């Protein structure tokens, strides 16, 4: 878990989301990759501190699960904040590779080759 925050969190997690417990968009999975838009859109206002932390972490593309672990916050809380950032045009989100009944052979071969190099 996150750094040396031994005194515990001062703000209860859902206080960060204005009391909302459900995201407005359901398209953030654990392995959806989020990336901060740089430079931010011209209309962007100064984000709240927790949003700012997210933007710092995802200057490079980062999966939602990793972001939640780094922030030491539940995934559901992070997703709500990501929805805000997406709506504000501050991040882009890339959904995971779709998995269907007809597997993508090229993809499987790539994964196999990658594992073989470990």
């Amino acid at each position, binding site marked *: 878990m996150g750094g040396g925050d031994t005194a515990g969190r001062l703000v209860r997690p859902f206080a960060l989301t204005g009391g909302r417990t459900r995201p407005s968009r359901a398209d953030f999975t*654990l*392995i959806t990759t989020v990336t901060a838009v740089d430079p931010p859109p011209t209309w962007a206002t100064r984000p709240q501190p927790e949003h700012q932390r997210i933007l710092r972490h995802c200057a490079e593309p980062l999966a939602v699960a990793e972001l939640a672990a780094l922030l030491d916050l539940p995934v559901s809380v992070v997703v709500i904040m990501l929805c805000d950032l997406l709506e504000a045009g501050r991040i882009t989100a890339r959904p995971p590779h779709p998995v269907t009944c007809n597997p993508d052979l090229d993809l499987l071969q790539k994964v196999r080759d990658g594992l073989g190099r470990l």
Partner: protein
Amino acid sequence: MAGSDVVTRAAPDTVKILIAGGFGVGKTTMVGSVSEIAPLRTEERLTLASVDVDDLAGIEEKHATTVALDFGRITIGQDLVLYLFGTPGQQRFWFMWNDLALGALGAVVLIDVRRPETSFAAIDFFERRKIPFVVGVNGFYGDHPYPPDEIRDALALPEHVQVLLCDARERESSRDVLIALIDQLIESATR
């Protein structure tokens, strides 16, 4: 995603594999032995996605609970990253794996031969949902008292499900289990 999204840097494509099995069977150990990062832990709110099981008849609302997930990452290439998720070990949460299982390439079910029954729920879950899986028999202290075929018979596994003896602490051994899963997926795709 919204079509208006501006792409600044190329985000990689992502895929995931689940590492399942009973409590204390070595799931996080396996994630850690092949992951390029120390296993991370996060909390996820999992919901009961569908009520299609007899045990749950009569439950109409969606139920949710928070479970801890351990996960790791393997960068396959610049444009592709594989995530490994250890499923929550508590059996009473098995029905909440629906959310986790969604979009997974497949799964590794780890088994401790000293108490294989702790992994029955995982095998059952993937069989019912037709999610491809291999069985990794995690030999504690590298000890493997039973041959794979004997274990397959004991678990009544179909012929196409591979049973591999492994040591979840060893990188190469864990990697080989993952490769066996991918080979199984490739084989069934080309059959």
